[in-house]
């Protein structure tokens, strides 16, 4: 197996000065050196193969960015082992930099006061990007991310969305072996997000780029990643395929039903009675629409057959639970139900 990233028992904790809020607390802090240890990541173990595209998700403060910083060599782990492209990142950071690309959402990667085109030229020189690679990555970025109209505008005058597109282009110009993308679609509108996802897919197809994507927009993950790592308070909650995650945690399917006429009270009671034993819940929306929530234990075909038999159905759709619904439920439950 050709490994791109490997971590074993990775941990990161910080010393943080204790300080209460307020003016007097600020004064007192000059004479107090109390500190506390904060654990950002603990016992994190996973392996990512070359060419894989992996989504790293978790609530704010779950340890996603800290993990990315350890994988890229910006932070030194407190304990454990980490390798990116076969090197210990913090020891071989300069060498590793040649082979990775990083986007930290909201933090500009390119020079603030000069146009993006000049920054791209700078990166070409700094990474010694071969002409044929640069021609492809530059053209692909300009076309796919629609950069042409603002390439010569100083970066500080660009909108957040325009700048994020330039940052992403800059990160991938040297066709890195691994791209760490920390919220690359933050602040982008729906159309631009689509473009960014297409760009990532194309770069991966062309160069076999390994992608580690952290995001709060789970549509990014659905579109570009086949595997998920879910972090909760610094610990790994789930590591597996995206479909597996949905199968494992999607404990409900929903039947949306539209009726041809008004159902009798007797038919409604009969349906409730037939389905209640399986834990199926029926919720009416007026007289002609209803939603039927099927738990994992209930048979969807049997529930569907009961609805068709008891009610004058005009239309019916069976819906699985979307990735973001599962994830938000996991967050709400503090990771319970996973593991």
């Amino acid at each position: 197996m050709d490994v791109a990233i490997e971590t074993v028992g990775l941990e990161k904790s910080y010393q943080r000065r204790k300080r209460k809020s307020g003016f007097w607390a600020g004064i007192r802090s000059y004479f107090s050196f109390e500190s506390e240890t904060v654990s950002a990541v603990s016992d994190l173990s996973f392996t990512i193969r070359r060419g894989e595209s992996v989504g790293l998700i978790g609530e704010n403060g779950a340890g996603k960015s800290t993990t990315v910083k350890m994988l890229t060599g910006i932070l030194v782990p407190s304990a454990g082992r980490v390798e990116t492209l076969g090197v210990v990142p913090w020891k071989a950071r300069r060498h590793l930099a040649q082979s990775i690309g990083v986007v930290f959402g909201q933090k500009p990667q390119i020079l603030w006061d000069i146009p993006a085109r000049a920054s791209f030229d700078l990166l070409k020189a700094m990474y010694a990007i071969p002409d044929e690679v640069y021609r492809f990555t530059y053209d692909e970025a300009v076309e796919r991310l629609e950069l042409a109209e603002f390439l010569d505008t100083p970066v500080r005058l660009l909108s957040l969305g325009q700048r994020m597109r330039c940052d992403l282009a800059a990160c991938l110009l040297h066709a890195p072996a691994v791209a760490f993308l920390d919220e690359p679609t933050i602040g982008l509108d729906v159309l631009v997000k689509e473009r960014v996802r297409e760009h990532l897919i194309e770069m991966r197809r062309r160069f076999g780029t390994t992608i580690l994507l952290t995001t709060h927009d789970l549509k990014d993950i659905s579109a570009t990643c086949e595997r998920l790592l879910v972090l909760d308070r610094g610990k790994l909650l789930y590591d597996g395929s995206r479909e597996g995650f949905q199968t494992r945690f999607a404990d409900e399917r929903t039947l949306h039903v539209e009726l041809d006429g008004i159902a009798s009270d007797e038919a409604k009671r009969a349906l409730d009675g037939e389905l209640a034993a399986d834990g199926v819940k029926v919720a009416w929306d007026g007289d002609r629409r209803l939603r039927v929530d099927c738990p994992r234990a209930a048979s969807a075909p049997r529930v569907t057959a009961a609805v068709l038999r008891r009610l004058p159905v005009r239309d019916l759709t069976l819906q699985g639970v979307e990735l973001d619904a599962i994830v938000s439920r996991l967050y709400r439950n503090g990771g319970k139900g996973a593991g």
Partner: protein
Amino acid sequence: MTVSLSLEGRDRAALPVPSVWQLVAGFTALALRTAESKLTYRLATVLSLIASGLAYCVYLLVWLAVYRENPNPGPLGQQAMTAYLVTAFIVNAILTLSLEFRFIQRVRMGLVGIDLLRPLGFLPFQIAQGVGDALVNFVFVVPIFGVGLYFVGGALMPATAGAALLGGLSLVLAFVVNFGLSYLIVQASFVLQSGYGVLFMRAALHQIFSGLAAPLVMFPDGLRAAATFLPFRHVVETPVLLWLGTAGISEAPLLLAEQAAWALALLFLGELIFRSVMRRHQVQGG
């Protein structure tokens, strides 16, 4: 703590190592782009130069008043003193880098992680930006030098071609000494999360000990002795003395050797601290 140490050495061979040519090309491109960035703020750059020039006029006026009261206050005559002060201002203006302010800002905003991930390496990355700053400064002081020549005359010019050469060489070394001091402030920013306190301390020491206000021979004995053991005089006084020929050929080797030693020592110390703080630092802002 069980941080792995097992893979150092073997791994570097597994990755493409940047060639010397790549490093030189990257360094040059970054220096030029930094200069381009600095030139963006035309009015701000010109105004800050004018402001520092006006502030510096106070030194000139004070010394002119001193010479009016006492034509022989020390080893330097009035004309030599004026030439020294104008040249010192020019050297100082060339070597005033935006590096510390830029870096302190980047640490506060959590942007420094991006600088750490460039194949150029962190130290060359910072030096290249310093070179870019100095390049712009150099262009801007050329007209000031012209104005100085008009008022002070030939006393601003080096006495011999050798003095010009030594002055130029010393200016390059002064850049490295100055950068080395700035690099220590960069490290302080890592440790303290805000380097402004250290920056202002350095600025105060520079004002006193660099020879910006007057050559050290005009200082009281105690202050002069202290300045001898500090690097600051090699940022301003040494290149000025060599350029003007006040320090002769015989003194040049020792002065240049001291400058080079300070340059190396400061860079070494900066790198040592950098390696240490990299193990403990945090990156702000998620």
